[in-house]
């Protein structure tokens, strides 16, 4: 599974494909304050990305991939802890 769901956050590993969007959406709907760890993430499908945006998901760790990180930082908020 490219996305691992824990109590506190969703961890994206490698490429999160379009199929993952629905599962992610369901998980986000259940969370009062959803957060996502993207350290290992190398790509998010546009649908997955839209879920993160629509659900105002906070990012706990940004991707190691600098370029992806640049893209995502332009639209996603960092988790203020």
């Amino acid at each position, binding site marked *: 599974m490219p996305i691992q769901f824990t109590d506190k956050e969703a961890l994206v590993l490698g490429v999160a494909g*379009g199929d993952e969007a629905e599962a992610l959406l369901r998980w986000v*709907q259940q969370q009062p304050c959803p957060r996502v760890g993207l350290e290992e993430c190398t790509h998010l*499908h*546009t*649908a997955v990305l839209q879920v993160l945006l*629509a*659900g105002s998901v906070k990012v706990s760790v940004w991707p190691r991939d600098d370029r992806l990180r640049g893209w995502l930082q332009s*639209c996603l908020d960092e988790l203020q802890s």
Partner: protein
Amino acid sequence: MNELIEQYLSEANELMEGITNHLIQLDKQPEEARIMNELFRLVHTLKGNSGILGFDLIANVLHASEDLMDALRVGEISPSPEFVDRLLDAMDFAYRLHKEIEESGNYAAGHADRSEQLTRSLRELLDRSQKKVFNQIEGASSCAESSKGEMGARQSEKVATLPEDKRSEFLKRIEEGEVAFLLNYTPAADSLMDGVDPFALSRETPGFAWGEIKARGYWPALDVLDAYRCAVSFVVVAFAPRTILELHYGAVLNQVEISRLEDLVLSCVDDSAGKAALVSAPLGTTSLSLDARVAVRQILYAQKAALTGASDVLKREKLISSAAFILSNCCKAVGNFEESEAVQRICRQANNGGEFQAVLEWIERIDARLDAETPEKKLVAAAANSLVEEPAPSVVDAVNNPSLNGLVSSKSLKVDHLKIDRLMNLIGELVVSKNAMPYLAQKAEEQFGVRELSREIKAQYSEINRIAEEMQDAIMQIRMMPVSVIFQRFPRLVRDISRRLGKEVSLVLEGEDTEADKTIIESLADPLIHIVRNSLDHGLETPEARKLAGKSVVGTLTIRARQEADRVVIEIVDDGKGIDPAVIKRKALERRLITQEQFERMDSREAIHLIFAPGFSTAEAISDLSGRGVGMDVVRAAVEKVDGDLELHSEVGRGTRLTISLPLSMAVTQVIIIESDGQTFGIPMDHVVETVRVPRRNIRSIKEFSATMLRGRLVPLKSLNRMLEIPRNPLTNSNDEYAVLVVRFGNDVLGVIVDEFRKTVDIIQKPLTGVLSGLSVYSGSALMGDGSVLMILNLREVL
């Protein structure tokens, strides 16, 4: 004229020369990227400069030229001779308008039509060529080239969101010649269903440099969210050719807006969205007018000078407070509130600790940024320097500060030629007044009997003489110009004419760095152009004719310059059909330029020189190039006006060689002073072959002419008195010998009988002005050391 306009014109001339030269090179090496980049840079700079000064008619045409060159540069279209022709037309137009600006400060409004016509033809050419290329690209949709302008306006808003560090990085890369595009990809709502991943597509954009994801509106509640309905868009900056980008987006190209980043940044200046964007630029100076940028620089320099000039601490504290006030307001005025606060903070800290170095560092940093942000930085720096008024003492201190010196010093200096002419006149006066000193020494000795003083004056004189001579030499050096100044027009001229005539010509230029005085070089320009036109029109044959004659298809036209003693020699050699003396003679007879008698006696050398006779034209059909019968005689007159000689050699079927010999400089003329009927005249030594004494008995009279034998050669004689219509016979000396000055014009030798020879002197000839200027028998006058005026005879006219 306004100083800025002067500066602009002087730069514009250089830029236009560069553009023309590069266009000619491009014609020869169409695929050379270096040439295209350089061309683009030159046109871009010229466009910017003309736009800043409000010369819109020029700027519009240049803008269209720039677009065309840009399309060439990024590979959207490929070069063809037609491009070069259109672009050269545009440059000609700009050149004409610049001439008008130079003469009257502005151009006539009547040029608007031509400007529009040129702009339109350039745009049409661009459109036509782009369509051709686009049609070749598979899957290219109509979107790519449609409504560029309208798209650009929307796109420029996107520039606003570029982060500051990225923006300056991109601008730097663009300035270095790279090409960047801003892409705005708005995927169709159902594109995810079609199996497209727009984010992946955007991430993989070729030449990707920066990207941003944007939501298109508010997100719906999660329970009604359709994650597969695309509601985001992507903004990408990519450094890649447009064609590659279009190929990448292939199938979804109609959802992508592609604009040149550079255009957007530049167009930002006008629209409000862009202005907002530029506030976040380092100093926002790209949006400032030239005047404003010059003003910012001046403020910076003035504050820097004031701060470095302050010696005691108390004074410095006050200065820092005032600098904080001025500089922070200056930043606010250009819309940079961040730096405004920064400088206030720095100044406060400086005053608390008393260390003002930080303030200077801030000024230097901003100054450097101003450089980096200003495309016309040379212009701005120069204007700022020239506008700094009478330096206050503190400014003088600042100039001595080595860190500031770098801003002021430059290896070469542009000086108005009027200033050099003034120097020239002054040195002329100095030479004349220094020549009065020997007279003074003589007077001291003979009239007042103080020998000691006389000797001292002479010693002093020799010193002043040395300095004056060196100075004169130095000033002459300033006036020297290489012949390349005129030679560089020829590649263009030869290309245009030979294309029009359907001839193939290779132009060889030699000795371009040969130097001569400015007046000489300038006087040479028009005659040379005429000669080259004639060579191309009448001399060189068409490729077919050349083939038939067993010559190589491509004709060669060689223009070479060299220095021979104190003269510059220019040769124009072609390997064309040559001049047929029989044809020339017949034409001259038909046109009644020679009599039947002359026709029969004339040798071939004399015959070919008939082409210099007024009203002579050999062209069978009158073309727009040459052949209107006003040609070579004008050339001869122009060359002779500056004391030059023309020599023509031609061999039928082999080619023609025209040699022009000109003096290196006209400033100092060596003349021989002669006396006739008690008056003294000067005759330029250039024409004098020798001075001889001829006994009266050796003079033979043939009808009304007289002549004498000189070393086996018959020399016709003329009396100066008679030529000047002085009703006196020439005098002889005690041995009954006449004084004869043997002069040469071209190949003709003539003896001029005068009363007496005097010495030879170096003089600075002044042209006759006012009423006297109509006297063509005198070429000018000169002031002698004793205060008398010497009239210089124009022997050509007198004869």
